[in-house]
């Protein structure tokens, strides 16, 4: 906790929290990246579940780079949010739940894209449902992070 309090006093952490426009900008990037990564993954999953049947299912992986763009934007903006309020996230178990859902969501989406062409549509459907649930989990956990933290800033806790 002392280490986190020290970190919060660094110029970078202070800049993220206090510089006008920086924090809203990071949040906006995080929301756009969410729409891109979770949204495009959802579209791939919906196709795997049998929607839009005239789209050749294996071609849906052409959209996977968009998931990566969103994922990269959100890793960067997420790290920035963490730099601004490290204790807020790191002392909340839900944050680790979000990361777990995220890892599973990315993993299931990649795996699904690898096996889209294979004839076992049934296995693909199970994977698509699991993937949809994981991405929903990331979003719900992320939103609840704003309401479930116990420590906003370690520097207030330590002193």
């Amino acid at each position, binding site marked *: 906790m002392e280490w986190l309090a020290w970190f919060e006093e660094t110029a970078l952490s202070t800049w993220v929290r206090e510089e006008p426009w920086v924090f809203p900008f990071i949040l*906006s990037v995080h929301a756009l990246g969410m729409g891109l990564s979770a949204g495009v993954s959802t*579209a791939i999953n919906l196709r795997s579940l049998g929607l839009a049947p*005239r789209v050749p299912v294996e071609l849906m992986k052409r959209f996977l780079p968009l998931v990566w763009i969103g994922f990269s934007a959100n890793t960067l903006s997420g790290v920035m949010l963490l730099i601004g309020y490290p204790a807020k996230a790191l002392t909340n178990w839900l944050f680790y739940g979000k990361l777990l859902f995220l890892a599973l969501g990315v993993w299931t989406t990649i795996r699904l894209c690898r096996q889209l062409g294979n004839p076992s549509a049934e296995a693909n459907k199970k994977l698509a449902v699991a993937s949809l649930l994981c991405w929903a989990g990331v979003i719900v956990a992320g*939103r609840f992070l704003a309401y479930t933290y116990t420590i906003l800033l370690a520097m207030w806790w330590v002193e």
Partner: protein
Amino acid sequence: MDAATLNSLHVPITEFGVNSGIHAFMNSAWAWPAMESLHFLGLSLLMGTVGIFDLRMLGLARSISMAALHKLVPWGVAGYCVNVSSGFLFFVSDPTQYLYNPAFQLKVLCMFIAGVNMVVFYLTTAKQIKASDAGDFAPLNARIIAAISLAAWSSVIVFGRLITFHRPPDHWCFWCT
């Protein structure tokens, strides 16, 4: 409308929110974050389906037929309906946060632009798109509509995210003096 009327627009909305029980529901345990979660899920559904359709019209993944991919768009409309419903709950539960907030006003403006843009699409070039095949290019007007759609919906997300900064500082409101 005079200034006094403009400044009391929220009064009947607040009354409706309270009388309908929506205000009490939204302030019950976890209701607000739960509805926000739905709002973000709807956002992702809309961006994921309409977004890839727009990008396809702009030339991405041309091996997929635009007509076939368009079948995902109703799911984006479903996401939109989820978000109008959840957005309505936020709005009537705390109208002053939204009505006088420039971020909200700009968000509604961008939703309006996206809506008009969609109507123009279905009245003009949608027929051509629905008759097109894999590998086809979208006509120029469809590409312009796709670009406007992406820009408008992205702006809706950004301005929506900025609503959080309740009663933003004066320099946010560029038309205020």
